[in-house]
Every structure is written in structure tokens, then in C-alpha cells.
């Protein structure tokens, strides 16, 4: 055996303390108890179901989808603007009369009225 080995031999590791084993066992027991509690905590109640958890979110998604489709729709009809344009072209009095029925008669008599996109 070399001199170096003789020297290294002189350093001896002390025995583990008597309390160490008890300490580790205590910690192990606590870990096992924690695990059992966390496992039992994650069990779902029998009357629980996915619709209860996700129902609200599903409704919200449906509403947002409907609003989005409506917003992105290519046909945009603004009725007020059409009426205003027609009134400008025909004059408000004539338009009023036409709506009330007089103009219908004159239309039947041969007058051609353009009412745009009505």
C-alpha cells in the first residue's frame, strides 16, 4: 500500500448520528401522508361533470362567434342611409306621399320612380 493510501486512511468518516435514521423515517412518513392527501384531493365528485365546469365558457365562445360572424359579414345594409339618399333624390314630400300611397297610384299611371336599393 502506498504512503498516500496510508495517509488517506487516517481520515475516517464518523458514524451517522443515532437520530439520522429516525429523522429520515419521520420525513418519509410525512411525505407519504402528503401524497395520500393530494391524491384524495384530486378525486372528482360523483355528481361533477364536464358541462358544469365548461358550460359557461362554451356559452361565451358561442356568443363571441356569433358576434364575430355578424361583424365580418360582407353584406352591410344600413337602412337609414338608403332612405336618406332616396329622400335627397326624390324630395322629402314626394317620398312621404309615395310611402303614404299617393305615389303608388301615380306609379301605376306610368310614372317611373327609382327608389334605389329599397
Amino acid at each position: 500500500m502506498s504512503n498516500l493510501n496510508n495517509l488517506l486512511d487516517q481520515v475516517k468518516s464518523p458514524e451517522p448520528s443515532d437520530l439520522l435514521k429516525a429523522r429520515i423515517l419521520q420525513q418519509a412518513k410525512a411525505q407519504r401522508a402528503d401524497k395520500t392527501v393530494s391524491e384524495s384531493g384530486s378525486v372528482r365528485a360523483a355528481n361533477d361533470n364536464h358541462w358544469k365546469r365548461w358550460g359557461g365558457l362554451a356559452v361565451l365562445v358561442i356568443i363571441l362567434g356569433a358576434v364575430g360572424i355578424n361583424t365580418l359579414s360582407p353584406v352591410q345594409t344600413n337602412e337609414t342611409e338608403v332612405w336618406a339618399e332616396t329622400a335627397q333624390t326624390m324630395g322629402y314630400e314626394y317620398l312621404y306621399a309615395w310611402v303614404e300611397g299617393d305615389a303608388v297610384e301615380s306609379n301605376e299611371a306610368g310614372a317611373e320612380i327609382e327608389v334605389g336599393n329599397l
Partner: protein
Amino acid sequence: MAKADPDNDLLPGLREGEESALAHLMDRHLKTITAIGYYMLGDASLAEDVAQTTFLKFWQQAPKWEPGQATLLTWMRRVATNDCLDRLRKKGPIYSDRVPDQADETETALEELEKNDTVDAVRRALSGLPDAQRAAITLSYYQHLSQKEGAAILGQSVKAYESLLSRARKNLKAALSPWVERETV
């Protein structure tokens, strides 16, 4: 063919979470694992912390443990060594100057003083080694592992491990030259 793990008999109990199985495992290996911590860190209290971490880590892993690849003791040695290397990386060398009591009633006071002086010098020489070299000395010299086993624990090739060990011995000889020469004379 792989050697059967001598701790296989404890595995069913450990998987089931039986504390008596853990107690048996500690009866077999607590001293060995604590010694890794002591030679690596130079402090008995920190060595016990390393042992506690190692055994509790295995306790957590036990239900998933598959025998065959490494023996349980090899796995624990690897965990303990890595834990020590992590602690050294974070805090630096922590060898204390306290000389352990090694009282022997047959020795004279002068012999005891000389012996303590030598022990202290060896401890300081060990603490002066780079972490990986200290790990190699711990595994090969103090744990009596083969170079192949030591290399596997440190995740190195056998050749790299041999080189590490050779450098460690060279550094120790240099640090302990007065004592080495005194013994030679």
C-alpha cells in the same frame, strides 16, 4: 449477464411504502452514503443532510423503480455524489478545521497530537482538490469502487476517470509531500 441487485429483496416493501423496508435499507447503506457526503464536503452535519436527501429521493422514486439497469446502491451513490457536487458548486469548499475526536488510550499525548496534525493535513489536502477529483478519490479510494463503476457514477468514460484519478493522486502527493517523505524515510 448483469449481477443481481442484493437489495432486490427490499423492493416490494419499498414500492408499497413500507417504512420497515426503508429502515432495512438504511441499516445496509446509511453509513456508506453518509461517508460520501463526509469525504466530499468535509462536514458530518452536511453529510447527514446529503444522506437524508438521497434516501428520501429514493423513497419517492421507489414505486417507479425498475430493477436491472443499475443497482440500488449505485443509484444512491450517484444521487449523493451529484448532490455533493451541487452543494460545492453553490457554496465552495466547506471543509471545517475541526479535527474529529480519535482518542486512543494507548497513544501518548504527543503521538495523538501528531496524528491529529496529519489527519488535519489530509483533510485540508482533500478540500484543496477540484470537486471532480475529490469525487474520484471518494469513490475509488474511500468507497472501494472499480474505475468502471466510478466512471459510471460521474458520467465519464473510464479513460477520463483514470486521468482524473491520476491527477487527484498527484495533487494530493504534492499537498502532502512533507508527510509522504516523512513516511518514506
